[in-house]
């Protein structure tokens, strides 16, 4: 098996621009028993970075990602995207933010069943400002041969790659992935990670990936550990491993 060339680590800050910064981020879910999902998170994410978020179930990973992506708002603290304040944004502004800057990938692919692979991507390219062509986006995830298939005719891995193609087709500034390989076997999971990795490398898209699988952390520039709503650890990989070298 040929050993792949390791990618050089990103130079240390401050050479890359800070895209997203969070300070003192807290989130409390109100209810009969209020749940504090985040307890004061401070975080800077830079352009082009590949970040992996690790943590036990319930530690607040999804909550953090959703706040960063403008799906939810924090209870207190500040999130800024470049010079936009997301903390106090209303629904209209958040929609705008998601539309122009964010790509999402979820554990369950959430494709639209009545649209073909290409059309699922078109859903995004229609409203984006400088989109890739749907065919190019699908080629980027290695799916240029399944353009006219409906989700029900695709395997789970293929569906997830369509979801990635859909997320990157707008050429987002950040790509947020919540357990993108959670529902896939290792072989298919690696295909998906390769697609993410290629996008990050070629398009210089800030990519954040949540996973339970510590092995995956090896492909990141930076790894964050969450526990009980706090960032409790952070390390940088000296080299990023290629996804195809992973095993689990």
């Amino acid at each position, binding site marked *: 098996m040929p050993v792949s060339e390791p990618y050089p680590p990103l130079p240390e800050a401050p050479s890359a621009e800070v895209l997203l910064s969070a300070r003192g981020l807290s989130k409390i879910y109100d209810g009969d028993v209020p749940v504090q999902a985040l307890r004061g998170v401070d975080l800077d994410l830079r352009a082009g970075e590949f970040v992996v978020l690790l943590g036990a179930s319930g530690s607040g990973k999804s909550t953090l990602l959703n706040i960063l992506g403008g799906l939810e708002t924090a209870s207190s603290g500040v999130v800024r995207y470049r010079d936009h304040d997301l903390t106090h944004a209303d629904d209209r502004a958040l929609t705008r933010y998601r539309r122009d800057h964010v790509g999402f990938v979820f554990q*369950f692919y*959430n494709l*639209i069943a*009545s*649209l073909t692979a290409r059309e699922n991507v078109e859903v995004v390219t229609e409203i984006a400002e400088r989109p890739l062509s749907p065919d190019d986006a699908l080629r980027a995830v290695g799916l240029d041969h399944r353009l006219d298939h409906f989700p*029900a005719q695709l395997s789970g891995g293929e569906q997830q790659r369509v979801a990635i193609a859909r997320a990157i087709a707008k050429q987002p500034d950040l790509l947020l992935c919540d357990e993108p390989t959670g529902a896939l076997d290792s072989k298919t999971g690696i295909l998906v990670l390769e697609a993410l990795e290629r996008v990050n490398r070629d398009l210089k898209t800030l990519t954040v990936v949540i996973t339970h699988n510590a092995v995956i952390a090896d492909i990141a520039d930076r790894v964050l550990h969450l526990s009980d709503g706090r960032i409790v650890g952070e390390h940088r990989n000296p080299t990023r491993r290629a996804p195809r070298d992973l095993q689990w």
Partner: protein
Amino acid sequence: MSVLTHKLVRDLWRLRGQALAIALVVASGVTTFVIAHSTMRSLSLTQREFYRDSRFADAFASLTRAPRALEMQMAQIDGVDIVETRASGSALIDLAGFDEPVAAQILSLPNPHGGLNRLYLRAGRLPESDREVAVNEAFAEAHQLRPGDRFDLTLRGVQRRVTVTGIALSAEFVYLIRPGDIFPDYKRYGVLWMARKPLEAAEGLDGAFNDVLLRLQPGADVPAVINALDRLLAPYGSAGAIDRSDQLSHRYLSDEIHQWEVQATVLPGIFLGVAAFLLNVVMMRLLKQERSQVAVLKAFGYSASEIAMHYLMLAGVIVLLGSVFGVGVGGWLGAGMSRVYQEFFRYPYLHYVLDLDVAVSGVLVSALAALLGAALAVLRAARLPPAQGMRPEAPPRYRITVFETSRIRRWLSPGARMVVRNLLRQPIKASLTVLGIAFSAAILVVGGLMKDSIDVLLDVQFRQAMRADLTLSFDDVKHERVRHLLAAMPGVHRVEVTRAVPVRLRSGHRSERSAIQGFEPDARLYRLLDSDGNPVPIPRDGLLLTAILAQKLGVAAGDTVEVEVLTGERQIRYVPVVGVTHELIGSGGYMDRSALNRLLNEGDVVTGAFLGVEHSQLPALFTQIKRTPHIVGLMNREVAIRSFTETMAGNILIFAAVMLVLASTIAVGVVYNSMRVTFSERARELASLRVLGYTRTETGVVLLGEIVTLTLIAIPLGWAIGWLLCSLMVAELASDLYRIPLVLAPQTYAYAALVILVTTLLSSLLMTRSIKRLDLVSALKVPQ
């Protein structure tokens, strides 16, 4: 409470919007069912009671004059039980403070011992002397007459002042309308009763009679009795006997009851059909969502029938609530309706009955509809093996539809493609949704029929056909010279005389009682119309027939009909039919007057006249007419139009409002439910769109696209169904009394479309709340 009961309550609460919409559709169905059945029952029950109490006759005959000795002979006819003779005449009434002449029919009182058509006295007492009369209640109300009031009465040209002794009702005049009118006019047409002796004297009938009532034995051969009676009375100028089915009031009443029979099936049928469909859609959706829960329950040992019961209960509760509410509203509206009926059908009492069995069958019929709707969905779920149920359902299969050529596809946005493919994946559901909305539009179109057709009816009848300002009839045949007399009256600028004669027309084995009217060749004040509303000239020879009469006789232009003249010597003639005419009110045969005079072997005689009058001179003319003997009937065109429109305006408004409520219920029910179901089926996709950066509005368009598309298809279909229903109704209601023209104004179609669109808009607004509350994160968190 068992767990399943808890679940039932929570499900109902969660589905409350949809449950309410369906319950309202069910309620509308049951309401119409209850109104129709209870009104029909009340009308016919009261009819039966009143007929029995007042000993309403079975057969009727009018003649010129016959000796009372004939009574014995009539009593001997096979099948005759009781014979009652009486005096009858036409009268003109002059009321202080009311300029216009008022026409009335005057009858002698029924025999106090065992007589027929007995009066129901509302107030006062029966008249005794020649200066006393009883008046019918509607007329008394119209003029606020009370016992003790007086007015001038002209009988056979002799005027006398009479006192009202009593206010009465009669089974003979439950529906009181002057023959030839389209609507009751209680102010200008009444019925009077006088003691027999004085009326005989006034009518020149001492020891004689000119009107017969018969009660028949049960099981009597009615046509045979009528025949025998006709043979017996022919020498005395009888215009032919009739049985109850030809009696004017009875006919209107029977027609009305028959109409309710039709209503009692059609409207509830539509509503309950729609309700069944809605329940089906909602249950299907619910069971799809709860597929795995059903499987788990089964795995735990619940039986299929327990589970089926649980879901059927859900449908049952919705339907029960709706139908109980419907019975309540139906009973309330039905009672209100019966009060409206009191105005038109003059019963001394109207027993409004909401029988238990009507209420119960309303509930049962809707329960049946619910069962039909829900059963299919429930059975499928109950039969599903648990292991299979816990696996996710196979993903829906979509296809690129045949409509989507590459050109069209490029043109359709992804949202539009979602809409098209979702619709085509469930064509039956989509078609039923279209049908439901279409019926709602159709009901609105039907609601407009009355207004539109009555506008045309008025126009055709009173501006195209009947153009005389005043129509007079005489108490007997007069010489044509009478025209000069009339022409000399104040304000009269045109006189056209006319001759009318009662006849029986025959062709083959068919025969119809009717009348032939003779017109002047250059008649302008009364015109016959063809099917396009153009005037038909009076032919020199031969007979024109109203289309409905020609149809009943099975004849067309070119055929010959046998004419039996029902007055005088009952001559029989054969006359060629030269054409058919299409007036909307009344029916009969029409000829050139001279030709008719020749046919009847009579001189230049007439029985009535049409007048063109200077309006400013009307009061003077009325005064003159009231003083002129022999004028017994008078119709004032302007007044007829006015009283007609005034009375109808209110009714049309009520009718249209009821139709609006009913139609909106269906529209809201179907549209709102479709949206809710679409929303729950597509929540995940809609959330995806929102995550991808689609705005609420853009997401809403995808959600609403389906229902809006269906609505747009449904509207023209609804127009067509509405037109069809109207043409069925028009055909069903056509009689020789009047024909409702099938006209629907463009505004009616526009209005139907507008209501449907507004309903869709309102339902959409309700949905925007759901889109707003759509929780993006949780919608996407669960597996597909």
